């Protein structure tokens, strides 16, 4: 299986590739459109801000490429946020528009710290191959200040002040707001599902 890890400049690229290695999968870090379109799986990692993330994808000429991907695509953290249509970060940024919805700032408040950082519970899990073997209440590691409100495309939620989308899907495009590469067995299961379950 050819797994393309899109080199969008995020700092978690190494961690994602190591997590795939722990599952026995090898991935190819690439910004080459031909590589990405030839892959059996495409992962868009990302850490940082939406404005810089989109700028980098545009500079690399990957905005159209990502829209053309027919294989299962997984966005992680900022990578998931970029799949939506718009992000409020950096004064408002048009993003890839591959999943309906928009990303907004998480309001802080009494007992609600921003960034949302740490192990939070996944709730309201939909029946989806990406979540096979993951149970309601299982915890995953989140670290982010922006998020998408739950919608019809939400596969799992997490509550931080209000409910937020933890996992999303539109067609063969999935996104995880948390970091599967740093979410112990829950994260490993999600990545394994992405490699072997989602196109069964």
């Amino acid at each position, binding site marked *: 299986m050819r797994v393309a890890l899109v080199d969008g400049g995020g*700092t978690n690229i*190494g961690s994602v590739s190591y997590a795939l290695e722990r599952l026995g999968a090898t991935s190819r870090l690439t910004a080459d459109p031909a590589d990405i379109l030839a892959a059996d799986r495409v992962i868009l990692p990302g850490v*940082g*801000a939406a404005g810089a993330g989109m700028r980098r994808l545009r500079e690399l000429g990957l905005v159209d490429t990502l829209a053309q991907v027919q294989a299962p695509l997984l966005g992680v953290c900022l990578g998931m946020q970029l799949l939506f249509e718009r992000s409020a970060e950096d004064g408002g940024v048009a993003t890839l528009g591959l999943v309906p919805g928009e990303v907004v700032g998480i309001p802080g408040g009494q007992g609600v710290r*921003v960034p*949302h950082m*740490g192990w939070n*519970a996944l709730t309201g899990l939909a029946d989806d191959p990406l979540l096979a073997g993951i149970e309601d209440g299982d915890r995953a590691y989140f670290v982010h200040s922006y998020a998408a409100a739950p919608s019809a495309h939400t596969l799992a939620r997490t509550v931080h002040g209000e409910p937020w989308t933890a996992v999303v899907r539109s067609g063969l495009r999935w996104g995880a707001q948390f970091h599967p590469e*740093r979410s*112990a067995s829950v994260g490993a299961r999600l990545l394994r599902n992405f490699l072997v379950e989602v196109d069964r």
Partner: protein
Amino acid sequence: MTLARRIIPCLDVREGRVVKGTRFRDHRDMGDIVELAERYAREGADELVFYDITASPEGRGVDVDWVERVARAIDIPFCVAGGIRSVDTARAVLHAGADKVSVNTPATQRPALVGELADAFGVQCVVVGVDSLRDADGQWRIRQFTGSPEATRALPTTTLDWVREVVGLGAGEVVLNCMGSDGVRDGYDVEQLTAVRSLCPVPLVASGGAGAPQHFVDVFREADVDGALAATVFHDGSIPIPSLKRTLADAGIEVRS
């Protein structure tokens, strides 16, 4: 169910090995960094902090080889502290696989560093470590160069002002090391942590003073911190993490089991 409180073992690293001892002398080798990191991950630690004690005092950068070895091996987040003085060093450490970098003395020397790191990597990667001690006039003030008693310098900045400042500059998390309780194993400094909590909108991690499971219960319940960091009680096995998690859960504190 909501966000869990974090239990964070801190490991001192010297030349790629985990060591124990006073920070500058009498280092006892505790073992291979990857083996210890894996053990803590397996036992249910929520996150790890590696403090590179070679890098900081000797003015060297962090040797990223061990950072990469740890990143390959473990599947929980970790932070690297010590020796990070610039965006370039931070980038090397983050690209090697660390999830966060922590700056302490370099931020006191040049506070703009905090903002530069936040701009380059996002606030979620930027931790500011604060070493704090109560002075004779009753005010908590920050210290720098705390690696050795001889080098430690007191600064006129109060801890509360400093925390406000670094959060404004872009700290995504604050680790407050209460030096008065550090090493005493008599409990976290709940009073000081509560005072800092009241003005700290980002995650706050307590450090210094853990000696018994009840100390963790107290600091989460009374000071409302997001995480509690400790070293000795985890390294010497006196508080096993699985039983600590059970104690916290029994006390009604949300933890990852």
